[in-house]
């Protein structure tokens, strides 16, 4: 049952007449229409890519079965181990532990900015599966006049040998930036973006009231 409070009809009517007295704004919608066409085209490309992928899988099915049989018995080390991040063993890391254990990794400098800045915060977690450290997670936030956002970043530590099932949502992100793929949605007043740097096993979710937060964050992460 919808129990939402109803607006006052007298006031609603007064505002309707108030806004109606304004001259209609002069807005050129051509750029917006072009953007809409681009979004539709990107979605169509994504659907076509999935159809092509499906056709390729079906046509290669027999070979795949044979390869699996051979692989299972002869080459187990080539197969990616899928796991659930939620079921992996988490261990919280301090910044000094992060520095000691992962100070040489590619993204350490970027992550450390969040730990060292006054207007930012960071919490780090390492996830272990089968006794191996497979994923580094970082919950980050930045508060500033120009850019404020929260971000959750996951960095694969297993060189692709372990793959978290939760990262499936990062497959087929429709848009391309310079060195990552992404998708942005507008949910409850915030821009929520998912981005992936596939070859590096880096996955990020960024939430902000500012649309440019994703590109700002990804520049911070990759510069």
């Amino acid at each position, binding site marked *: 049952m919808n129990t*939402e*409070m109803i*607006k*006052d009809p*007298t*006031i*609603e009517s*007064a*505002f*309707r*007449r*108030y*806004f*109606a*007295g*304004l*001259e*209609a*704004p*002069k*807005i*050129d*919608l051509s*750029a*917006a*229409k072009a*953007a*809409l*066409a681009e*979004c*539709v085209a990107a*979605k169509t490309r994504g659907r076509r890519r999935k159809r092509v992928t499906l056709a390729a899988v079906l046509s290669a099915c027999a070979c795949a079965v044979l390869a699996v049989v051979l692989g299972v018995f002869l080459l187990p080390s080539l197969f990616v181990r899928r796991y659930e991040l939620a079921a992996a063993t988490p261990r919280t890391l301090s910044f000094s532990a992060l520095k000691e254990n992962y100070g040489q990794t590619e993204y350490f400098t970027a992550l450390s900015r969040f730990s060292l800045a006054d207007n930012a915060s960071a919490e780090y977690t390492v996830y272990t599966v089968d006794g191996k450290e497979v994923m580094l997670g970082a919950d980050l936030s930045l508060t500033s*006049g*120009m850019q404020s956002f929260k971000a959750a970043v996951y960095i694969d530590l297993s060189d692709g040998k372990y793959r978290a099932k939760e990262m499936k949502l990062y497959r087929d992100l429709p848009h391309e930036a310079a060195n990552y793929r992404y998708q*942005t*949605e*507008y*949910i409850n*007043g915030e821009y929520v973006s998912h981005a992936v740097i596939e070859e590096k096993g880096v996955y990020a979710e960024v939430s902000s*009231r*500012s*649309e*440019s937060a994703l590109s700002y964050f990804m520049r911070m992460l990759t510069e």
Partner: protein
Amino acid sequence: MPPLELGQLNDLLYALQKGDADALDGILALVGRRMFALARGITHSTADAEDVLQESFLKIARFAHTFKGEGGYAWVMRIVRNTALDFLRRNKRVATENLDEFFHLTDERYSAERRHEALLLEEALQKLSEEDRRMIYYRYYLDLTVRDVAAETGMSKSAAARAILKAEENLRALLHE
């Protein structure tokens, strides 16, 4: 907005999701004035408000696929609000909503026939307390639900509902004077 128009706006947003570019014209015709009023109130400038609207329509086109449910008007107005505040930040201006600047639409290009009634509404709004005006702004400009108002202000839902009712009662009394 009356329920019929709210329904029309939701339909336009769903048409946009299917790639119907004419739906953008429909949205401009249906709620363009309200969007402008909000942008003008935040930026205090007609030219800036038009820029904000331009940018807002770009975002509506790009993010239409994320719209779900029935709150199309609130969804559109949130885009305008956030775009306007971002605009102020990018131009190194203080990004706040100064309600003193909001209720001066008659300073813009305004219908001569409706001007007298509009001035009465503006006068009434300016006589309200700051809190009452803010509640009216949240409900009648942004179309926020009671829950949204509570989240926005840090009040409990019941306190937000009471504040809204008080603001409405005070405004009604001023309009009937």
